[in-house]
């Protein structure tokens, strides 16, 4: 049955690719079949089944990308000025204000040590809330260790989409303050 579910995932990806940009319903059917197949794998083999299914799906998708690369039509390397401008438009460069070492250091301090501490504190508070008055246990310890990097990732990504250094203080604060509340209630 596991083999059948994986075969269905392959078919699902083929449907997604076939319908891509052409027949929306076929693509949607492909996504639906992928979800059903992954659910089936989860039901049959738990987390192992889902992991194997996702890897199979990614592998098939990469094969399709490789095929797209091989069949990609060749174009002249020379390009027009407009094309060149469009090509480079969405690569971000820092504003030309010298090295701006001080600002960069401040951003680093807020995104790395400060957000690390905020995420660690939030995760620690969750651990305290989960274990209550009991001794440390596997669930509360594992929860803390899983939550910390996830929260820090969110904080880092959020901070790096903010424009001012002052605004970058908000995400870690929004993790630390609930951490304090959870800690007090724990």
């Amino acid at each position: 049955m596991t083999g059948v579910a994986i075969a269905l995932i392959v078919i699902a990806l083929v449907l997604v690719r076939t319908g891509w940009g052409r027949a929306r319903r076929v693509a949607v059917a492909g996504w639906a079949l992928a979800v059903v197949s992954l659910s089936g794998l989860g039901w049959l083999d738990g987390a192992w089944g889902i992991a194997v299914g996702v890897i199979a799906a990614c592998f098939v998708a990469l094969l399709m990308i490789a095929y797209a690369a091989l069949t990609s039509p060749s174009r002249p390397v020379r390009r027009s000025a407009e094309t060149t401008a469009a090509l480079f438009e969405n690569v971000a460069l820092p504003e030309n204000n010298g090295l701006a070492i001080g600002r960069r250091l401040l951003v680093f301090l807020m995104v790395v040590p400060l957000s690390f501490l905020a995420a660690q504190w939030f995760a620690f508070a969750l651990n305290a809330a989960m274990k209550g008055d009991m001794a440390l246990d596997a669930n509360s310890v594992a929860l803390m260790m899983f939550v910390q990097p996830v929260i820090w990732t969110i904080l880092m990504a959020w901070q790096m989409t903010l424009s001012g250094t002052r605004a970058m203080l908000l995400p870690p604060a929004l993790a630390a303050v609930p951490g304090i509340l959870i800690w007090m209630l724990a």
Partner: protein
Amino acid sequence: MDAGMSNANTPPNLVKRALAGHASIGLLAGALIYLIAITGSIIVIHERWQRWEQPNIAESSILTPAAAQASISAALALEQGLPKTEHLYIRMPTHDLPRAVITTDNKAWYLDGEGRIAGREAHSWTEFIMALHINLTLPVVLGMILVGILGVALAALLVTGVLAHPKIFKDAFRLRARHDPQLARADWHNRLGVWTLPFALAVSLTGAFIGLSYAGAGVLAQAYTSGDLEPVYATIFGEEPEHDAAPAPLPNIARALETVQTRFPETFPTYVVVHDPGTRGQFVQIIAEHPRRLIYGEAYSFDGTGAYVGKVGLSDGTFGRQAAASTYTLHFGSFGGLPIELAYMLFGLALSAITATGTTLWLRKRQRKGLPTRRLNAAWSVVIWGIPLALVLTAWLRALAGPDAPLVAAFWLCIALGLLVAALEPARIQQTWLMKALGVSLAVTGLTHAVYFRVFAAGTMALNLGLIIAAIMIIMIARRSAVAQEVS
């Protein structure tokens, strides 16, 4: 970083800010993420590299309980004059590595099928690559925390990358590989990024979990156990009994192994761990793999007489235990045999390509704006092509100077020298030259290994063939890259 033309309209503010944030994180952490990604791709099959590195060791797919028992006395007999070992590990033969290995705190030896010492385990190059990936060859705890931080940085890069590309799913199959180099590079960056997203999120967050758990455990230890880390880890991995250093006969691991075989026949023992061997406080743990599970195994415990005491509960205990025990196999791709390992290698190489193309896109734009880029370009070439070249050179050093060669120092010296030349004389760093040197060195490595050792084991031959194919591909890319540079 997206230079795709599909997003040519003025992007909204969030997209612009996400692009800027994505670029900043990439520039800060890109080189180390690349190093971790490329070494990670290699060590997915570390057991096969271990066989490749020491190809002439006799192999045996079975180590009977009696042979395992005999191996303890044989190994401890070689420990005369060395500090008394507190832990002893027997790595049972598996399909990936059909060699039993016994390891003490002092040394490690291969065993033959009878449990006799068959040679020194000396896969120092494979271990060096693993150390680069796991802790960047820094002191273990510090290095693992740093790698954990880089895992978070990679996860944040993935999030900002998705935010920065509003048409990421619309363009998911669009790849103009033979178009303008900058466009092709952007398409590779984005397409590989999209389709390896689940893998990259899984390995970055599990890597962050593994690395940063040291920091979390430290916090919990300070808060609840007077700074002692052992009780914190014991909540997940189980407790060790009280130490009792009084002498005692060596433990009966044969009985313990037989018990696992009869009581848990669906499992495969992978490790026998003896804590405090030869003391009254000794106890034995057998780590056994459970098929079709993400957990690395269950730890079955036995006393010194080999009587079953119980299990830790990694397979059927609390959710926290099972989840924590699942992060390692999910991270290293060791949960589904060779097909999953090959997929992980491919995805890891894709992640390396995403990292490489990301910074290259940024550098090309900088160059176009007329900003000074020569040194940065040269340094990035040293990172992208110099790192794998230095890894190959360390393999040569291992082959020529033996397992005790200073591989760590040699690797970092190579990279430091390359970066120094890039900073002082950037014109001397030619990317295509580095690529060709890498290609030639890979081909020489594969051919020399095949001719010198003449090992016809399928795994070893496949690795040599893989090295030669990789060499051909890299040389082809180098030639194409040189042509593109001449035209543009």
